[in-house]
């Protein structure tokens, strides 16, 4: 009995040794402060081209201007990112800073994961230097928990060929003109007219808002009487009417061809999308056609609610358990100044810094003007901690209404009822 047992022990200890050696070798790389520098870790989700600018331009300049701070960049994949952040926060392993989707900020702020920045030195200066609506996405309970690092919105993009075939000479300015153009395009043989990305908030809101719909009251505290108001019902009914008349592309219910595919092949008349439509398609290596050539851009057509697009983008937040909050704040402030904002805008990201966004050099990027113009009237998705939860209810009911499984009134009444309950949480 004794000999075999000692053998097992021997093997176990070899395994343990393996663990320890692996552990120590990887440990040495993660923590270092031998040269008296402070290392701040920055989680981001920049794309390939954007990451290149971040690594090769932003990082060297920042580290040169702040010799005592070292920037550690970690690119995170999207899949399961939220759980990663939650695990990081609860396990005290979150980074110092993160570039986070604007709609997450209130939620994480409510969780107590983020550091409030509105009381920090220099906050007012930052606040006055950036666009107002992106800044507002950082608010929770009257205080700010982050700063907007880049913004975006969607504009109307039309396929030139389809417009020509339909005999439409310029981008529609109003929702009526849009519907009329879609009708003509459809009659001229287009596979789809208005291409709404999907039956969800991000896809439907520009039309819903522009057609007069609303989600909440002004200060985001009440939904009943707003999301199910007669105006909202009318807005959604209009969209469904388009669907019945065949003016919408099949994409709204996930049909094929996809939105980009339909535009690239000149089968759809119009889609609404962000600047990435151009930055991605223009960077294709062996593209057959230049998207700048075969599309026309316009603002989201005006309806009773105005020309209301939806704001996207990312905020820079500092985690509450950051070990170096001061240095992190230094970086956040610096990142919002004109120079780095301009550098990042080379990739098609829209700066939040007013000076950088209005810089003539930036406006020379061939497709950005319409985006900057659209930003002035674009709306943020309701900045409440419960947004993700509410969004699920909204999406489901919208889809049911579009599929005709529920009347518009019923769908929006149910959204209001569930929304009110969610708001109280």
């Amino acid at each position, binding site marked *: *009995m004794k*000999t*075999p*047992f000692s*053998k*097992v022990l021997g*093997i176990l200890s070899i*395994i343990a040794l*393996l*663990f*320890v050696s*692996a*552990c120590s070798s*990887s*440990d040495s*790389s*993660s923590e270092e402060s031998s040269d008296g520098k402070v290392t701040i870790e920055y989680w981001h*989700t920049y*794309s*390939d081209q954007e990451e290149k600018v971040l690594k090769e331009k932003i990082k060297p300049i920042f580290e040169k201007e702040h010799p005592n701070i070292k920037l550690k960049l*970690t*690119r*995170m*994949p*999207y*899949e*399961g990112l939220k*759980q*990663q952040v*939650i*695990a*990081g926060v*609860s*396990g*005290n*392993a979150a980074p110092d800073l993160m570039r986070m989707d604007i709609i997450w900020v209130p939620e994480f702020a409510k969780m107590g994961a983020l550091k409030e920045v509105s009381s920090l030195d220099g906050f007012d200066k930052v606040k006055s230097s950036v666009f107002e609506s992106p800044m507002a996405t950082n608010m929770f309970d009257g205080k700010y928990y982050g700063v907007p690092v880049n913004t975006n919105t969607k504009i109307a993009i039309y396929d030139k060929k389809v417009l020509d075939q339909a005999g439409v000479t310029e981008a529609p300015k109003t929702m009526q003109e849009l519907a009329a153009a879609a009708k003509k395009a459809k009659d001229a043989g287009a596979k789809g007219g208005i291409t709404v990305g999907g039956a969800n908030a991000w896809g439907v809101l520009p039309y819903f808002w522009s057609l007069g719909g609303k989600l909440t009251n002004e200060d985001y505290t009440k939904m009943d009487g707003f999301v199910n108001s007669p105006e909202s019902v009318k807005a959604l009914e209009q969209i469904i009417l388009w669907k019945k008349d065949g003016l919408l592309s099949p994409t709204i219910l996930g049909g094929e*061809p*996809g939105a*980009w*595919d339909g535009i*690239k092949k000149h089968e759809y008349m119009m889609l609404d999308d*962000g600047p*990435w439509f151009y930055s*991605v*398609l223009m960077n*294709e*290596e*062996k*593209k057959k056609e230049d998207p700048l050539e075969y599309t026309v851009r316009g603002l989201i057509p005006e309806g009773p609610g105005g020309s209301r697009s939806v704001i996207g983008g990312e905020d820079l937040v500092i985690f509450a358990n950051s070990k170096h909050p001061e240095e992190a704040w230094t970086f956040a402030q610096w990142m919002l100044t004109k120079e780095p904002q301009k550098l990042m805008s080379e990739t098609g990201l829209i700066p939040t810094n007013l000076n950088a966004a209005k810089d003539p050099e930036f406006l020379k990027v061939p497709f950005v003007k319409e985006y900057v113009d659209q930003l002035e009237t674009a709306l943020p998705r309701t900045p409440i901690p419960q947004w993700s939860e509410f969004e699920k209810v909204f999406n489901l009911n919208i889809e049911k209404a579009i599929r005709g499984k529920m009347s518009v009134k019923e769908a929006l009444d149910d959204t209001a009822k569930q929304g009110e309950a969610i708001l109280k949480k």
Partner: protein
Amino acid sequence: MYTTKTSLFWKFVVYAVLILGVAVFIIPFIYMLLTTFVDNAYTLPRPSEVFSVTPNLDNYETVWNRNNFFRYFLNSLLIAGVSMVGSLFLGALTAYAFARFQFPFKEFLFRMFLFTMMIPVVLAIVPQFTVISNLGLVNTYAGLWLLYIGGGVVGSTFFLRGFFETIPKELEDSIRIDGGGNWRIFWNIYLPLSKPALGTMAIFSFSGTWDEYFVALTIIKDEALRTLPIALMMFQGQHASNWAWIFAASIIALLPVVLIYIIFQKHFVKSGLSEGSMKG
């Protein structure tokens, strides 16, 4: 009993069903393979484009040189390899104990073991992370191995216990007569006779950890230490993804699993090793 005509008919039906089955399984795979040859697949290419494509390795080359793909490939090999050996070895030891030893609360313990298999990873991730963090093993492969092997042992124990119990107890007597102990019985009888089961388990274990994304991303914080599934996910963009790249990367990621399968599948056929080892 059957005339030649009917048996021919049935043969035809059986072959038709089999061929249909093969087609159902292989066509998506071929479609995926062909998609990897398409340029600029930011929108999923249509069947007409996919079937008219000329095979080339451009996308494979791009993918291999992007997002530290090669580095992550090696990292994954190390992680999945050690986890496979670890969970198989510890699992076999545990299964041997459950199969051959009598001790109090044996069945209760075994049930508890199985119970841990039923907790979804997403639910367990925060407590697991806290434990790993308290052990100081965040951002180390040791932490990852602890979770992978810990999780894998349960499955292999369950699987191997059943197999061990089919091995005739009398075989042990030959060792006992020669003065050998439990270790020798385990090492010289149980392990060699369980090669088919061990081979199967090795494939499961390897492909399980090779594909694992969520835990790896949570435990590993340094970009340089990341694993292959994380690199795969990096090809999914925020607004648009190049599907040809994603598929090309997936095909590369698939190769080691196929290789492992080829290595261990030999053992599948050799079942019933203990047959004829005893009289009557």
